[in-house]
Each structure stands twice: as C-alpha cells, then as structure tokens.
C-alpha cells in the first residue's frame, strides 16, 4: 500500500498527463467516428455567439457582394416562377395532386463563422434545432453543394464543409450519370477530387458534376462543379479527376439546409437489406 502511494506520488505528473491525454483522444475519436458528441451544446454555444457578434460587425463591409449574389439568385428563381411561363392551354381545374408529394424543404441560414485553409474546415450558421435542423442534413449555397450538418444546438449548427477530410459526397456526371465520390485532398479550397470514377467512362474538360440520386442528404442534380483536369494512372482502374467547385467558400454568406421528409423511410428500407446478408 505504501509503495502504491509512493508510486502515485512519484509519477503523479505523468499519470495526470496520461489521464488528460486519454480523455482528449477518446472524445476526439468518438466525435470523428459517430458524430454523436454534441459539442456545441457542451460548450454552451458561447463560441457561436462570439462568432455571430464578430460576423454582425464584419458583415457591413461586404453588404454589396451579399446583395449582388442575392439579386442574381432572385433573378434565377423568378425565371422558374409559374407566371414566368406562357400558359399554353385552357383553364385547368385544381385537383389534390397525389402524384407529386413534397420531399424536400429548405431552411435559409446565414454563415456566422467559416474557415477554408485548415485541413478540416467547419462552418457555423445561425439556425439550429429550433428551426427544424438535425445532424446529417445536407447544406447547399446559391451556386452548389456546401457540406453536411454535424452538430446542432438550439439556435446554431455547425457544418462539416466539403473542404474536410471526413466529408464524402456522392456525385455523378450530368451527361451520363456515371458515379463518383467527392473528397477534398487539403490542397486548394477552389478544387476537390472526384474519386472512384471507372476508367471506361468518357471524361472531358468542363463536364458538369452534380449530386447523385444515391444520397439521402441532397436532392438529385444539385450542381457541384466542373471537371478541371483528369488523368488515369497506367495500372489503375479509376480516374484522378480534379473538380473546380462551383461554391466559392471564401465568400460564403447565405446557405440553405435541406430537410428531406423521406430520409427515414429510405434508410429504414436500406437497413432491412443489410440485415439480410
């Protein structure tokens, strides 16, 4: 017993170091693998409030750019309104349509904090659980894909940006629906890599890349980027494709969180497949 106490006394610094280090590695590991630890709630959202205060101040300097991007988006959306089309028919009776059922809605949010030059980048937005946002929802900007929600507090959420080593987004070519996985290699925030595209697929410069219909996070066909360069190693089965991203992450201000009403249903059906084999 005395020896034990002596041992503890002699090495207490190392033991304290070991305990604290284990603690941090364990919560790091849990967070990386399961995205369960709700860190925003844990730290009381003080950080988010701080970033919002800073953002409220700095936003005044970029009001012109924000206005411009909103105007272009408005113009594009106005073009899709019903009254922008010429009515090429007789008066129609309205019926309760059961063929079209709404699957997605969008929650608009403002970016309060953003980083682009880290290896793993995160974005904080000013909408949270109170607005119906849950972890693992997709996020898009006015030009294209932005990222995936990781943790949610009452009024704030953090997004794992597409510029993050843990973010993989299922994508396809707009022209022939060939699939690939979008992963960032940490090199340049303007570009990302499209992996696992089979070598028999024909790839040319400026091919449009959009989100695929495999994902439960994004609706099919949300723009992602354009093919910037592509090459294939001699003994490789897959392309190395460099994609120029549509979203400009350095000036990102307004984003939309995608709420998918049929996500649970799809995941439930897919889960029954997995238990089969």
């Amino acid at each position: 017993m005395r020896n034990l106490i002596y041992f503890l006394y002699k090495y207490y610094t190392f033991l304290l170091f070991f305990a604290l280090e284990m603690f941090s590695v364990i919560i790091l590991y849990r967070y990386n693998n399961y995205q369960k630890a709700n860190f925003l709630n844990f730290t009381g959202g003080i950080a988010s409030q701080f970033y919002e205060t800073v953002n409220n101040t700095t936003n005044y300097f970029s009001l012109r750019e924000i206005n411009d991007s909103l105007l272009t988006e408005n113009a594009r959306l106005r073009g899709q309104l019903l009254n922008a089309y010429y009515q090429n028919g007789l008066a129609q009776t309205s019926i309760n349509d059961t063929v079209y059922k709404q699957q997605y809605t969008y929650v608009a949010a403002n970016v309060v904090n953003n980083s682009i030059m880290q290896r793993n980048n995160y974005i904080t937005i000013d909408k949270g659980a109170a607005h119906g946002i849950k972890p693992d929802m997709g996020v898009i900007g006015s030009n294209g894909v932005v990222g995936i929600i990781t943790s949610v507090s009452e009024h704030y959420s953090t997004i794992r940006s597409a510029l993050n080593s843990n973010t993989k987004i299922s994508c396809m070519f707009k022209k022939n629906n060939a699939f690939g996985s979008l992963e960032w290699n940490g090199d340049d925030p303007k570009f990302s890599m499209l992996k696992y595209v089979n070598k028999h697929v024909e790839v040319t410069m400026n091919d449009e890349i959009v989100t695929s219909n495999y994902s439960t996070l994004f609706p099919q066909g949300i723009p992602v980027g354009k093919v910037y360069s592509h090459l294939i190693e001699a003994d490789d089965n897959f392309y190395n494709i460099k994609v120029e991203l549509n979203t400009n992450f350095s000036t990102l201000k307004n984003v939309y969180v995608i709420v998918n009403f049929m996500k649970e249903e799809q995941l439930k059906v897919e889960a029954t497949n997995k238990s089969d084999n």
Partner: protein
Amino acid sequence: MIIDLLTYIARFVLLILLQLLVVNNLELTTYINPFIYIIFILSLPVNMKPWIVLIVSFFTGLVMDSFYSTPGLHMGATIFMGYLRGFYLRIAANKEDFETSVSPSIADKGIVWFLVYALTLTLSHHLFLFFFEVYSFFEFFRTLLRITSSALFSVLLIVIGELLFFRKTKTR
C-alpha cells in the same frame, strides 16, 4: 500574486482574440496554418508546478476546441506540449531559473535559447494537432510539410509577439 493572476487572464483573453480575429483570417495557403495562442503556455513561469501547467494546457485546449468545433483536438495537442515543456525545461533551464520566477522569454533568456525552445515545443504541438486532424497516414509527407511550414510561421509570429509585448525584464 493577484496582480500576476490578472495579468495571465488578460494575456489569455488577448491571445485568444488575436488568434481568432487576426491570425485565423490571414488564410495564406492550406499549408500555412499558424497557431499563436500556445505562446500562453510557452510563457508560463519556469518554476510553475508541472501539474498546474497540465491543467492550464487542458483549459487552453478546451477553449480553443470550442471555438474551432473540434472536440479533443487542440486539447490533446496542448496537453502534449505542456507535458514536454516540463522535460525540456529540466534539461535546458539552469538552477537559477527554477529558484526565481523567470518566464522563458527573449528578454530573460536570450534570442537563441528562446528560438530553440519555441521551435521544439511548437513542432511538438503542431505534430500532434495536424496528424490527429487528418487522422490517417495516407497523406504523410503532405502533412509533414504542412506541419513544418506552419510551425516555422507560428514561431515567426511568436517571436514578433514576444518582441512587442514582453519587452520588460522582470526585476528580481
């Protein structure tokens, strides 16, 4: 004693604001991500008890993690550095430093001593931080390049900070 404590708290808040509002917005390239808040742990007095240094490192990391939304990442790196700091000082600092409450600064220990000290500990911090951030050895050499370039830049900023804010030599 109280004055000392207040000085440290003020320095802590100032360094965090500097890191978050200025250094994080430099955004030079993806290969240079300097972290200067570690200057707080570097500048703690030489004769501070190792377990206090560890607890201080723990809280510094916790605060940084909540701002970066990376639970455990900065915490692990600062604790690692705080522990190595004790080892390093036992070898590199002399008996006098331990008897008086000298803080390892350029003013007290000279530029060369401080450069080696800052570079060693910054490298240890960045080594932990960047490798755990990527969480794999797939990009080993790219990560190594990011670590060395970021550490060199951090040390440059730390030395500039030291020259600006820590000029006063402590009277003993």
